[in-house]
């Protein structure tokens, strides 16, 4: 079972590489029960969009 640190590492890596099915599965299990990591997941997406938008401004 992943802890939040590991889950956040995987969420971050998912932006940089294709994570494996196994990793996806354990991530999904963790996200089912963890609000903090759910928010982290959304926020790193927002940050990526922000980086793109910053350059487009």
């Amino acid at each position, binding site marked *: 079972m992943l802890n939040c640190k590991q889950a956040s*590492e995987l969420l971050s890596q998912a932006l940089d590489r294709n994570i494996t099915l196994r990793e996806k599965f354990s991530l999904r299990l963790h996200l089912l029960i963890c609000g903090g990591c759910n928010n982290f997941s959304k926020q790193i997406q927002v*940050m990526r969009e922000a*980086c793109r938008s910053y*350059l487009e401004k």
Partner: protein
Amino acid sequence: MIQVELPDINNLQEQRNYLLRYAMLQLRDPHLAEDVVQETFLVAVENRDKFSGQSTLRTWLTGILKHKILDLRRKQRRESVLPNADDRQDPLENISIESFDDTGHWISPPQTWSNPSLSFENQKFWEVFEQCNQRMPLNCAQAFMMREFMDLSTAEICKELAISTTNCWVLLHRARLALRECLDLQWFGRK
């Protein structure tokens, strides 16, 4: 009627501002940023035949600027002006320690950011965003800028910084934790 295309000075000024912002974000030094932007314009003028008009002028100029920044970085690393990207004793070690407790749980779990797209419309948000990027620990920032602003792959970043893939992921993760925390403290958590 014959139309003569005059160089649009306003447009050039606008491009210049954009390129400066781009360079500042990555170099954190107004003089260095000024230098690379000037060099970029020189290269652009010398190679103006190569500008096909297929991409926008901005994209073309940014492409040149990227190379200039990467060149400068390489030079700095050779001359050891820049800390090594996998330097062990960096203060950012604290970030992952501070974000999580001993059992790997969030010390203060991320809360919802309400309506980020609305923030994108707000000039103040972008000032905070800029500051937070500048505050990021330098070796994380190098990897993060290459990834998010230069759109390099992890493999390319590893090659540029001469670090392992694992180390690159660690740096990117820390960079994201740092940026997230800063945006949360300075912007989203405040509203």
